[in-house]
């Protein structure tokens, strides 16, 4: 990991319109939690589906997509990445630093709001809340790794990431349980399920399988991203 790359990437992410969007999305979730609390008071039966659907199913993949692609795709697109690559810095540290930046941002804009929304909805930091927070953390790691990889290999990283998160995980996964078993969202939820008591919907895959899968996806995505970055060709204009 390289401190300079970390600092450059952080500053790049937080200075622009991107940060505006990153702030706005969790605020909607927290506002929703407040409104729900005003309507129904403390009710775990509403809190759980809301957190599962919104925090894990919508906020997490979106923030990870914006952060994961945003830490590397614009630099490659503009050609700025040449200033990082034309240095005796190992490609591992470059990718790792960018991934860490993406994960930290995702956790900040997903886990923290999830905790807040959970506290608001359940009146305390008890049972399902830590589970959901933990789910967002492991989901953030895996999602960011996949999206950083997409950012390195494709110029249309965001569209592909979207097709994965929206079409595969939500649409197809909504109808075909088998597809749900191969989705980061389900694996993250299985950690939540295992940490909480009686959440209702079961995940497709148990935590004992899901966690190693998440780790494997992360490691594989990292490796492939490093390999591709080593052979990155910059061909002048556009």
């Amino acid at each position, binding site marked *: 990991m390289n401190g300079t790359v970390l600092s450059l990437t952080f500053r790049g992410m937080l200075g622009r319109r*991107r940060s505006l969007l990153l702030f706005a999305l969790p605020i909607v979730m927290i506002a929703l939690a407040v409104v729900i609390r005003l309507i*129904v008071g403390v009710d775990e039966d509403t809190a759980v589906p809301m957190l599962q659907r*919104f925090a894990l199913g919508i906020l997490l993949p*979106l923030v990870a997509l914006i952060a994961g692609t945003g830490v590397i795709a614009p630099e490659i697109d503009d050609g700025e990445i040449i200033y990082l690559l034309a240095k005796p810095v190992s490609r591992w540290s470059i990718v790792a630093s960018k991934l860490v930046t993406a994960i930290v941002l995702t956790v900040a804009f997903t886990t923290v709001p999830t905790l807040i929304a959970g506290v608001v909805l359940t009146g305390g930091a008890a049972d399902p809340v830590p589970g959901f927070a933990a789910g967002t953390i492991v989901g953030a790691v895996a999602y960011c790794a996949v999206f950083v990889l997409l950012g390195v290999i494709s110029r249309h990283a*965001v*569209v592909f990431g*979207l*097709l994965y998160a*929206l079409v595969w995980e939500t649409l197809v996964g909504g109808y075909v349980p088998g597809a749900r078993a191969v989705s980061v969202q389900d694996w993250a939820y299985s950690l939540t399920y295992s940490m909480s008591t009686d959440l209702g919907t079961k995940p497709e895959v148990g935590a004992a399988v899901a966690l190693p899968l998440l780790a494997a996806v992360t490691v594989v995505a990292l490796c492939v991203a490093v390999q591709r970055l080593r052979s990155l060709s910059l061909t002048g204009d556009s």
Partner: protein
Amino acid sequence: MTATTIHDIGYRHYGGPRLGRGYAIRSLYSNSLRGVFGLGRPGRAKVLPFALFALMCIPALVSVAVRLVMAKLVPTAPPINLFPYRAYIFDLQAISAIFLAAQSPQMVSRDLRFHVMPLYLSRPIRRFDYILAKLAAMFSALLIVFAAPLTLLYLGALLNKMNAWDQLTQYGPALGGAVVYALVLAAFGLCVASLTPRRGFGVAAIIALYLVSYGAVSILQGILVANTYDSAAGYVGLLSPYTLVEGFQTWALRQEHTGIGYVEPGAGGAVFVVVVVAVLAAALGILVARYRKVAS
């Protein structure tokens, strides 16, 4: 020293009639419309829009086919409509949302990114013409995407020898709804996309705003209905593009209501119309303000 001249080697000044502003606007419109579907661009650009278009049409085809088969196998059974006209666009909103998110930035972000706006504006086209042409193009593209499956359903119904008038009373208003969908979505998509020159970020922003607003609205509506606040649930639909148009369709086009929540038939429901108009006006205002800063 001889005077400066240009020798006649084929360069000619064109002093004749020019085709004018209207032609320029129409050309920009048709070029943008073709660009949405990837026509006139390399093959890869056609894959996504056509794939999504096909996905939109497939349920209609399936519905027609199933009815044909059922009519043959069980002639006495009443005709079933797997994917009715009324809820078609709403039920398949994910597909058109991706279409909008992927293609809106492609239409406006590139002009901003590569700073070609001065080139456009130094021609007879005005800023407002540019905006209108782009909006019209996105509107037309979305209308095609929405109207095609509805039309397939209608033609399929005629093929199945169903009552033409009966079908028309459903097909017509559904088409009207498609028009409003296309208007609202085009305005929303182009507005967001024009705020950033980066195409990838534009895609993310559009889909994020859509998904978060729809997620929040549907969760909230579910909770409200479970607690018998039905009409409040209906009004919450104002906060997300697809539910907004649904409310409009229910109230203005006298359709029966789909989804949850309840839109009041009286003056209360008219607020949907007001909001639709307000959204369109606001989007136009934002676009005008945005493009005023560009290339000035």
